[in-house]
């Protein structure tokens, strides 16, 4: 029966296809934690990546710096002026904070309510980025041993970048916002609102339009007052992302898919390529 060698190969191919498609189907979407062979492989490879990312960064930085010398002078000047402005704002902020504490005491707030907006920002280095364009994941150097848990929000200096999707003992995978898709099991939508109109506006960022390079915000009520140019921040209503993290600004607003709600396009503040350091937002445990 197996006279021709071609026959046997086809059977092997068929079994291979069945096995791999079963594997893909079974592992799609949420998986609770990583199995130990995965943890071992991952930490080994990421450790090697950690060894060479510094010389890599140095080489890339060298070429980048050469081309940016003039831009650096301008930036320096602008930053010095902004810093002076911030110093003035800090004094006012300290004053307001002290007043806030006194008033909270006076009203008898519980400890839990007081800690709600005290986020801890853990700084992490980005070791590697996935070379697959449809799988936007980066690897950071904080893991289970550093207290990172799944679904923590990750942001850069400019704005929200993504969330921690998988945790290994010494490293973690971060799924970027460019990976959001409302049909996929492995992406979580973000409940957002507008900075300045926190109790009046509402929207959900569900997907990323790759062709336009903008985030798509759905389910905006028709009576909502958001306009082009508003700054979009997380609202914390979804219980997943903490409140108050900036995401981007509204670029356009039109009728939604079913004509019941509106849809807006949001241009993210953060850039998702060439990431160096990111912050993982740690929300204090609610008691």
């Amino acid at each position: 029966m197996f006279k021709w060698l071609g026959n046997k190969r086809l059977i092997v191919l068929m079994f291979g296809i069945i096995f791999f498609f079963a594997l893909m189907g079974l592992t799609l979407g949420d998986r609770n934690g990583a199995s130990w062979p995965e943890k071992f492989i991952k930490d080994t490879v990421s450790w090697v990546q950690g060894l060479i990312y510094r010389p890599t960064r140095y080489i890339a930085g060298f070429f980048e710096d050469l081309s940016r010398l003039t831009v650096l002078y301008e930036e320096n000047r602008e930053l010095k002026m902004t810093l002076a402005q911030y110093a003035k704002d800090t004094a006012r902020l300290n004053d307001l904070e002290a007043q806030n504490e006194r008033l909270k005491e006076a009203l008898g707030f519980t400890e839990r309510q007081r800690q709600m907006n005290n986020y801890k920002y853990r700084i992490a280095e980005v070791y590697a980025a996935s070379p697959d364009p449809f799988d936007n994941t980066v690897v950071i150097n904080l893991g289970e041993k550093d207290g990172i848990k799944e679904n923590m929000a990750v942001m850069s200096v400019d704005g929200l970048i993504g969330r921690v999707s998988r945790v290994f003992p010494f490293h973690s995978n971060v799924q970027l916002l460019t990976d959001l898709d409302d049909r996929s099991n492995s992406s979580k939508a973000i409940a957002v609102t507008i900075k300045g109109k926190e109790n009046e506006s509402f929207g959900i960022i569900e997907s990323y339009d790759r062709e336009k390079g903008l985030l798509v915000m759905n389910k905006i009520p028709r009576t909502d007052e958001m306009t082009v140019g508003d700054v979009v921040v997380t609202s914390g209503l979804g219980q997943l992302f903490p409140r108050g993290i900036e995401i981007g600004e509204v670029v356009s607003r039109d009728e939604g898919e079913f004509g019941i709600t509106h849809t807006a396009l949001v241009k993210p503040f953060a850039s998702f390529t060439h990431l160096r350091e990111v912050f993982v937002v740690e929300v204090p445990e609610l008691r």
Partner: protein
Amino acid sequence: MMRRYIVPLALFVCFIVEGTLMEWIIPGLWQSQIYVVPHLVLTCVLYVALFQNRYLGLAYGLAFGILQDVNYYGHALGVHSFSMGLVGYAVGLAFRGSRPGLVTCMLAMAIGNLFYDALVYGIYAFFLHVTRATPEWTFVRQMLPSMLISLLFALLLYVPARKWLETRQTTRQQEEK
């Protein structure tokens, strides 16, 4: 003794470089408007499949595909291992028996890269439903530029690949045919 392990070691180095150095070498503008992704590891696996036999190509493709899947787990395990293994085997099968010169090698690389990109995109879009990009957009913006950049790296790697992979045994086999 070192000769025997040079291919897996070189492939591992290529894998590490693909994750770390590539993002910084490719200009940022190219990365946002067109998705240029040079498939270094795939290029090396194709060289192994072309110059040695296709079973080795299949084995390396599976192994380094699994490494990529576990390391950058995004949506599902198995996408890259399946695609790399299949493409390694298919290219080895299509170009078996011939002694590939420069042009044939580049042709094989181009076909292999396009096939790999098409497989990965096809699985993500039609089987797993995790992306909404249309095939036309993906072809023009991602597959074609990636293939061209991978061809460039294939050209750079041609001489080392020839030197390390084509042992005297394979040349004698091919000359006897």
